[in-house]
């Protein structure tokens, strides 16, 4: 029976059932059980199965199950479970419902076999997720949420426009691999690119994730961008331009992350950088490269959630996520510090941690394709990841100078969520075979060779040594309370000023015209008053005098008309 229901509907049913339960443990339990049931269902689904449904003249495919959609479906269920466990203490119906609808939409989109179903779920993720930002209930969060919503809904609108054009060209709405060329495919590509945070389209990510609630950010970090990665892997695998887009994505965020003060924003930049690796894998497009992308997305969702959880735990106890205000917290939050270090080691791809066994597939594929510059750039970006996520996050939060804060460890459920996630990060790193077995294609790769391990350790530890030297010499930039400009400057600062300037000019012209007309009308009235008013020349002989004049005028006119007629 269970396999007849699209997985997304389980989450939607759960969201409705929430209202029947009182706030408290029962609700918390439901929020945990729904992802477990969904994961169990996805696990049991037969590869190659479909569930179709009529929709006007189209046949929609609500459940296209293959190995690519299954691995994303499974990790999304796992992320929903871990996120909800971390949010066990939350007693806010808005966030609880949003979390289920958001996860359900993302899973629905992953299993969508056609572009129309994809569109519905695509917009579903946008609408559900914005409530995790608004749930902070401050004016700043409201404005950020509006910006986020405009961009996310915009991505959906571009998608449906692209789908319509694509359908006109090909007569098909099937969501399969496409070739860039027609306007329709370019629009679909652009819409995926917005959600995947392509360079210059990326800023919604760094703008919104630090604005969400503590638990909301953990949930946000898993779905939207990885859905876009899935969509690109499904629709545009092997599209060469993605290699270059991906390389730029791995590089530019590491500079911004280095000088960013808000650690949740640092993680958002770091997320952007990790997406770059996945995009490069999609661009290369070989079976192993796509395996690399899928496995990296899987590992990434876990360690990124873990890092957001640890920063969130600190924020929960201290009220801030700003590096300039934190430091020395290892004394009283040592468990959180350890979990954070596991996340840091995983994202930095230290051997025996999850990032190592997944990212190296993508680097290996770039090298195997003899893309020298691309490979060099990715190796550089790997050192960059160490710098902000591997060092900066744990070091400036838990070590560095003593901030004097002595906060308690977070509540047990937060520690448990972090503990499970950390254990998974290590398990994948130590024993990657089960993950490799889930990948869409046959895996032919050995992560643990002497040269891989020594090469990676050299890269990371020499970079760490450089950090040590830069800190000892005082060259390393200090953490300062500040914001840094990025592409969002164009629409948060420049555009409002342009609009204000244009509005000023238009307003001045309008007022000027009105004033001019006002003066003209006044002078006409004054003129009429002068000639026809009580003291006017025309009024002096009024009414007989003027009547004679008007009769003579009329007579004259009649004469002229009859003369020419």
């Amino acid at each position, binding site marked *: 029976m269970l396999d007849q229901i699209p997985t997304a509907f389980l989450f939607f049913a759960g969201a409705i059932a929430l209202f029947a339960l009182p706030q408290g443990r029962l609700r918390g339990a439901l929020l945990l059980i729904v992802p477990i049931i969904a994961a169990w269902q996805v696990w049991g689904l037969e590869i190659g199965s479909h569930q179709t449904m009529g929709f006007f003249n189209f046949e929609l495919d609500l459940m296209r199950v293959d190995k690519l959609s299954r691995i994303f479906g499974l990790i999304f269920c796992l992320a929903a479970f871990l996120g909800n466990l971390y949010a066990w203490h939350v007693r806010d119906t808005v966030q609880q419902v949003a979390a289920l609808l958001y996860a359900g939409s993302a899973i629905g989109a992953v299993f969508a076999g056609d572009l129309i179903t994809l569109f519905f779920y695509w917009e579903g993720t946008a609408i559900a997720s914005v409530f995790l930002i608004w749930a902070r209930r401050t004016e700043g969060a409201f404005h950020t949420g509006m910006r986020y919503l405009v961009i996310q809904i915009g991505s959906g609108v571009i998608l449906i426009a692209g789908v319509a054009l694509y359908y006109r060209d090909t007569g098909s709405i099937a969501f399969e691999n496409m070739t860039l060329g027609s306007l329709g495919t370019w629009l679909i590509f652009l819409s995926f690119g917005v959600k995947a945070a392509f360079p210059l389209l990326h800023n919604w990510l760094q703008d919104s994730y630090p604005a969400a609630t503590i638990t909301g950010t953990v949930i946000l970090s898993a779905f939207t961008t990885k859905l876009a990665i899935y969509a690109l892997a499904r629709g545009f695998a092997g599209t060469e331009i993605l290699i270059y887009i991906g390389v730029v994505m791995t590089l530019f965020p590491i500079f911004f992350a280095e000088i960013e003060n808000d650690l949740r924003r640092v993680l958002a930049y770091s997320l952007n950088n990790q997406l770059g690796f996945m995009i490069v894998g999609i661009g290369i497009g070989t079976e192993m490269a796509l395996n690399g992308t899928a496995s990296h997305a899987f590992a990434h969702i876990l360690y990124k959630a873990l890092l957001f959880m640890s920063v969130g735990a600190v924020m929960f106890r201290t009220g801030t996520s700003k590096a300039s205000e934190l430091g020395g917290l290892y*004394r009283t939050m040592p468990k959180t510090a350890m979990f954070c270090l596991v996340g840091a080691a995983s994202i930095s791809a230290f051997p025996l941690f999850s990032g190592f066994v997944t990212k190296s597939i993508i680097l290996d594929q770039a090298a195997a394709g003899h893309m020298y510059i691309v490979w060099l750039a990715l190796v*550089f970006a790997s050192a960059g990841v160490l710098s902000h996520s591997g060092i900066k996050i744990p070091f400036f939060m838990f070590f560095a100078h003593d901030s004097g804060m*002595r906060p308690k460890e977070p509540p047990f459920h937060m520690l448990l969520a972090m503990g499970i996630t950390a254990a998974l990060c290590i398990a994948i790193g130590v024993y990657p075979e089960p993950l490799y077995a889930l990948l869409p294609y046959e895996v032919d790769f050995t992560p643990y060779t002497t040269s891989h391990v020594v090469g990676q350790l050299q*890269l990371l530890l020499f970079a760490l040594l450089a950090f040590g030297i830069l800190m000892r010499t005082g060259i390393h930039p200090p953490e300062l309370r500040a*914001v840094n400009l990025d592409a969002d400057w164009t629409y948060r600062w420049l555009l409002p000023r342009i609009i204000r300037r244009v509005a000023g000019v238009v307003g001045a012209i309008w007022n000027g015209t009105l004033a001019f007309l006002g003066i003209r009308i006044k002078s006409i009235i004054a003129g009429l008053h002068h000639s026809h008013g009580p003291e006017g020349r025309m009024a002096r002989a009024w009414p007989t005098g003027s009547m004679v004049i008007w009769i003579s005028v009329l007579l004259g006119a009649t004469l002229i008309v009859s003369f020419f007629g």
Partner: protein
Amino acid sequence: MSDHETDPSKLPALGRMLLWVDKPGSANKIFWALAVVCGLLFLADFTFEKHGYFDVENLPGFFGAYGFIMFTGLVLAAKGLRVLIKRDEDFYGDKAVDREEYPESGLDKVDHDA
């Protein structure tokens, strides 16, 4: 929050063990231990034959040197970038999250000895 001088016996056991890192001289020890490990990793390159895709990979210590140089370059470049793009926290006005405190209702600030 408590002052800087916290009684170590009141800290969690794991936190007490970690206090070692703040002892005078510990940072030096960590740094030099790291330097020694780096040296060993460089020497390790001579113990096996490399079969990299690119010639440059086969140079001894390539990854170490590349990591060291690029990391330093990254930090210096980011420092330069900061000169260009750093602004005050209220740059985007007072309706931006950078200016607000996180609402207390979503927090549970508790000291370790509370």
